[in-house]
Each structure stands twice: as C-alpha cells, then as structure tokens.
C-alpha cells in the first residue's frame, strides 16, 4: 500500500492547481449546501410547527386555514365532546381561531406582502408551547392589539412594538413581539379572536385546535366529528396539517432538487477533470512506481484516495463558504394561502454531513476513470514520456 503521505505530498507539490480545485469544488458544494439549507429551513418550519397529538378541525375540502370556515355552533358541539383535556380551571383545551391575511408593506418592498393574522384565545398559548413572548406584552382581550413574530417585525416596515397600522377602517397597534422557534407561527401576527371576527365581520372561525386526553380520545373525537352530518368538518393532527402545507411551497422544493442534482453532476465532472489532469501530469512518476513493483490495484487505490481527499477538502471548503448563509432569514409565497412564509437558511449538522458525504462520493465517482487510466498505464511508454 502506498502511504497516504505520498498523496498529500503530491497535492502539496501542485499547490496552485490543488487549491483551485478545492475552491472550485468548494463553491459547488457551497451552492448545493445553501439549497439544502433552504429546504431544511422550509422543512423545519413545517414539521416542527404542529404537535402530533393535537387535532386540527377544518372545513371539509379546505387545504389551509385561510380558506376554512368552522361556524360557532360546530365549535359549541365539539367543545362539549368527551375526551378533551381540561385546563387548571376545568375548561376544555380547545382553541377556536380565525386566520385572515393582511397586506403589510415590507422593508425591502413597499408594495408589501400578505401576512397571516391569527385571532386566538388564551388557549392558543397553552396548546403551542413554542410561542414565547420576547418583548412588550400580550394583547388585551377584546382589543385592537396585536403581537407580532420577530421575523415579521424584522422583514416588514412599521411592525415593531408601539407601531400602528390600518386595515380597512380599523386601526391596529403592536404591543408585543414573539418568537416561535422556527415554526410556521414565525410568519404570523396574533390578536384577539373575538375582536378580529367583529372587525372583519366574520361570524365563523377558521379552525379549531383540540387537545385530546390521549390517543384513544383522539380517535373517538375524530370519529364523532366525522360521524356528525351537521358539521361537514375534517380532522387531522396538527402535525399532518403543517406537513401538508409544504405543498404550497412546491416552487422552492423543485428549485432545491434541480440545483442539487446539477451541483452533484458538476462536482463529479469537476473532480474527474482535475484528476485526469493530475494523472496525466505525472505519468512518469506513476510508471516509475509500477516499475518499482507497486501493483495496479495499489495505484488505483492511491489515485482514488487522492481524488476522495481533494473532494473532501472541497467539501470542507464548501461548508466554510456556506456558513455565512446560515440564519439568513428569507420568505416566499405559499401558493395555497397566498401569504408569505418566512424561514431561515439552516445549515445544521445533518446538512453539513450530507454535503461532505456527497462531496466524497462524487470525488470517488469522478476519480474512478482517471484512476483506472493511471493503473493501466503502459509502463515503458509512460517512462519515456516527458
């Protein structure tokens, strides 16, 4: 076996070329990683938003809360069902919510984008432990006060504590900022459900969130709601609802897959190119090694290792290049709700690991042909080569 030192030394001997291939592969990996980070951010925003044991009640056929209606009679019927967990005061943990979109001007774009405004009661906070107030105070019941997600405050103009804005004839004022640790609620504003309903002349809720006592109660409540012909409602777990919301973000997902596929192809071709160059510039050296008695297999392995190593370094460079995009917050339209969904580029350990693995794999695939070429060199001819 040829010691790894040989590979490292020969890379060092071709410093400039090696560095260029590392940076070149690094850029490929960095682009790929940023795309994965984007996807990761979208996925995190959707899969961490909902709890698996809370039940979401929507109108039959509605794909999103914005387009769902649950009237107040249905709320009263469901509230009275057995199997719903009770709070400290003995009241059932059920959160009737109204979800409406408001258009707000963005800092970067005065024309603005639609933001979800969620009308809630106290129960909403009990059911969504990830929502924490970080600044200001909660809205008072039956008031025109709103609390705003930190990411919305950062991206939209005029949305900080103390700011006011008008939607139609009503004035709204921001009294607090909350953080929802990367969930979908980070793209929302929350206010009082009754006031929002009156202000927008809606006498139906958009959705109900119900906390059953256990899994058996989940099933029995679900069966009860489905079996009631008056209701015409659908039930799914809150988790499932948010996972399905990813469909509205299809554009981003398609983009991520196209870019990743191309970048993998580019990484393979790039290492292949680099390795062919390295091999052809040291034919004599390789032939000498063969003449000294190293087997073909050994040379093949050494070349593959070298290729894998360069790609590995490229992967590391890619991670370093991709790190600055981490935590950049961006937003895109959810085509199901026409509202803006905010998420972060999220370069976490898994994304980084996947980047390194894909880099090494494409390095090995790309190195295969050049390595075979190196192992098959006709010794006498290669020794004569200048």
């Amino acid at each position: 076996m040829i010691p790894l030192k040989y590979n490292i030394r020969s890379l060092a001997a071709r410093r400039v070329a090696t560095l260029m291939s590392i940076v070149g592969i690094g850029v490929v990996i960095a682009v790929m990683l940023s795309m994965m980070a984007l996807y990761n951010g979208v996925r995190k925003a959707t899969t961490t938003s909902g709890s698996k044991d809370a039940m979401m009640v929507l109108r039959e056929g509605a794909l999103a809360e914005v387009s769902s209606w649950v009237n107040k009679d249905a709320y009263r019927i469901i509230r009275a069902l057995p199997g719903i967990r009770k709070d400290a005061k003995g009241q059932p943990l059920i959160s009737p919510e109204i979800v409406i979109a408001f258009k707000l001007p963005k800092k970067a774009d005065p024309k603005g984008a639609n933001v979800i405004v969620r009308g809630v009661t106290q129960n909403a906070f009990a059911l969504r432990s990830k929502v924490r107030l970080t600044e200001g105070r909660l809205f008072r019941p039956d008031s025109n006060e709103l609390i705003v997600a930190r990411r919305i405050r950062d991206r939209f103009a005029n949305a900080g504590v103390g700011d006011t804005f008008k939607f139609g004839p009503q004035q709204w004022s921001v009294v607090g900022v909350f953080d929802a640790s990367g969930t979908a609620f980070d793209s929302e504003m929350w206010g009082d459900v009754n006031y929002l309903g009156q202000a927008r002349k809606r006498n139906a809720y958009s959705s109900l969130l119900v906390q059953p006592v256990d899994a058996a109660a989940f099933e029995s409540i679900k069966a009860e709601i489905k079996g009631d012909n008056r209701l015409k409602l659908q039930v799914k777990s809150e988790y499932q609802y948010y996972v399905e919301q990813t469909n509205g973000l299809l554009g981003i997902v398609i983009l991520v897959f196209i870019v990743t596929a191309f970048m993998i192809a580019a990484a393979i071709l790039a290492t292949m190119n680099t390795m062919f160059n390295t091999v052809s510039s040291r034919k004599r050296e390789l032939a000498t090694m063969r003449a000294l008695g190293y087997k073909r297999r050994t040379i093949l392995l050494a070349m593959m290792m070298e290729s894998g190593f360069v790609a590995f370094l490229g992967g590391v460079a890619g991670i370093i290049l991709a790190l600055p995009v981490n935590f950049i917050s961006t937003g895109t339209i959810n085509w199901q709700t026409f509202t803006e969904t905010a998420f972060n580029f999220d370069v976490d350990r898994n994304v980084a690991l996947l980047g390194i693995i894909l880099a090494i794999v494409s390095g090995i695939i790309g190195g295969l042909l050049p390595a075979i070429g190196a192992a098959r060199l006709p010794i006498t001819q290669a020794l004569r080569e200048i």
Partner: protein
Amino acid sequence: MKFSKLIVRNLFRNKLRAVLTMLLMAAIFFFVATLLSILENFTMFSEAGAGQNRLAVQSAISLVNMLPLSHEAKIRQIPGLVDVCTLQWFGAYYKEPKNFFANFAVDHKHMRTVFDDYRTSDAEFAAFANDRQGALVGYELMQRFGWKIGDRITLKSTIFPFNPELNIRGVEHHPVDSSSLFFHMDYFEKSMNDFGLVGMFWVKVKDRKDMPAISKQIDDMFRNSEYPTETFTEKEFQLNFLSMMGDVKLLFHAVSLCSIFMLILLAAITMSMSARERITEIAVLKAIGFERGLVLRLMLIEFSLLTLIGGIAGVAGGKLVFRFVNMAQVTQGFLVNFTLYGQSMAICLAASVAVGLLAGGWPAMRAARMSVVDGLRRVV
C-alpha cells in the same frame, strides 16, 4: 483564417480532457440558462397584459379578502371605461391535489370585452355562454388532462365549499396564458348561496393615459368604506405575485454567478495544464518567427473556443431537453410554455467565452512570455 487548423489540432490534442471540460461547461451552462429562463418566463407572464389597458381592483386588506359585488355598479359610473368584469380565483384541482391549475369564475357577459386577448371561436363562446355550467379551457390545459370539448368534469375546491361540475364548451387561446380554466360567475354565486362577494374587478380603460387617474378615482371612492380597494395596472398586479415569491431573482443570480466562478477556476486548471504541456512547442513557434502577440491570440482563441463549444452544447442540449420534457407537467403547472429563451441563451454564450478568456488568460500569457531559450531548454 490560416491558423484555424493549428487551433483545432491544439484544441483536441488531449481529446479526453477537451471533452470533459466541454461536458462540465455544458452541464453548468444548461443549468444557468434554465435558471435565467425561469426568471424570463416569470417576466413574460407579468408582461402578458401589456398594452391591454387593464386595471385590477382588489381588496386593500389583502389578496385573499373579497369585495362586495355592489362595487361594480359604482365603478361603472366612472367615465372613460370600456367595461368592467368580475373575476374570482377559485383555487380548485382536478381529481388530485397535484393536478392544480389556475381556475376562475368570470362574468361571461363582460369577459370578451375586458379580456379580448383571450381568443375563442364565436360558436364555442356562444355554447359556453348558454350553459350555466359551461367552461372555457386553455389549450395547454386541455392537452395536459386529455380533455375534449363536451367532457364533463368535476373540480375539487380547496377554498369554497362546493365542487363545480362543468361542461367543457370551448378552447381558449392566449399567447402566454394557455392553461387557465374559466367558468360562470352566476354558477359560483348561486352555489355560494348568493353570497355577494367577489375577489376582483378587472377594469378596461379606453385611453391608457387615464389609467393612473382612474385607478386613483376607484381607490378614493372606497377608501372609507368597509371594503377599501387597491387598484393596480395589470403589470403591477403580476409583479406583485413575483415579489411575493421573495428574493428568487437574487437567489438565481447568486447561484448562477457561483456556478460560473467555479467554472473559471476549474477551466483555469485545465488550461494551465494544457499550456504547460506545450512550452517547448511554443518556443519552437517563436523561434521560427511567430510573434508573442500572435501566440497569445492563438491560445486565447483556442481556450475560448473550448468553453464556447461547451456553452453551445449546454444551451442547445437544454433547448432540446425542454422540447421533449413538458415542464408544465414536471412542475405541476408552475412553469407553463417553458423553453430556453433567446436572452438567457445569449447571456450564457457570452459568459462561456468570458470563462475561456478569464481562465485561459494567465496561462496563455505566461506561455507566450517565456523566452525562447528557456522554453527550449525546459524539460516539462
């Protein structure tokens, strides 16, 4: 040019290396051309209604809020209008959620005057107008689902609580938007129990100079009502959608630039290899009287030819791929009528030449500058 043979021979002196470099160029330029074309496709959509003198009136509160039908009569009182047409985004799909496409309820009585760039034969339009459950379908959408005139289809609604059952009565043709479906506003209102609200009013204006004034007049009229409006020109309206997609443009441009930067680095490795290999040869050329400038020019032409061929292969390959791959199907209606567009292809070809010059510049210069004696003595 008398040196063309020399250039071509040098270009393919190492066939494998040349082909690999071209392949890498082709892959990346195919990719960059696709990204740029997607942006161009969006812009085309936003400019589809240019010159149509149309204004879109929607709720100032947000796109998903609705306006009362009674606004229509008030808007009609404004002088200088051709016609007003109500339009409701319906957001339904066919059979399965993945078969999503644009579908609207539209006021058929005013559709042809306001949306006169959508063409349907008179006979088909009459059949559509006479059937309250009739539908007009874009020809690309007809192809996508294999529909024929006379078919009865049921759409699954995601926003409104009824599933329209429609008879396809006509095919609609439009230069850009050929995958939308339209059905009767009456049918929508009846099925919604006369709920009296609609998403948008489209206003066609006689003279385009009046558009800003009329748009302001409409918004002023409803400013203090329960349902304030916001009026856009058609282009602004479409651009709003684009801006709602976020910084897609920035993202695509950043990805394209990174890819091209990577190409420059990798091409530079190949080219310095190729230049180093022929130092002796170049010294000989210079010894027999080739000038330094000529040697430099020959090498630069060769290098940029190498990358240009790669670029052409990528762009032409892409054009071919998108002829056979129906992007409307792949992206579930997200990209309609997609192909690589002239502007994106031109940018890519120009960039491919630039990559050759940038990557090859330094190696070529170094090779051309080396003194004859050094070059001849040098053992590579």
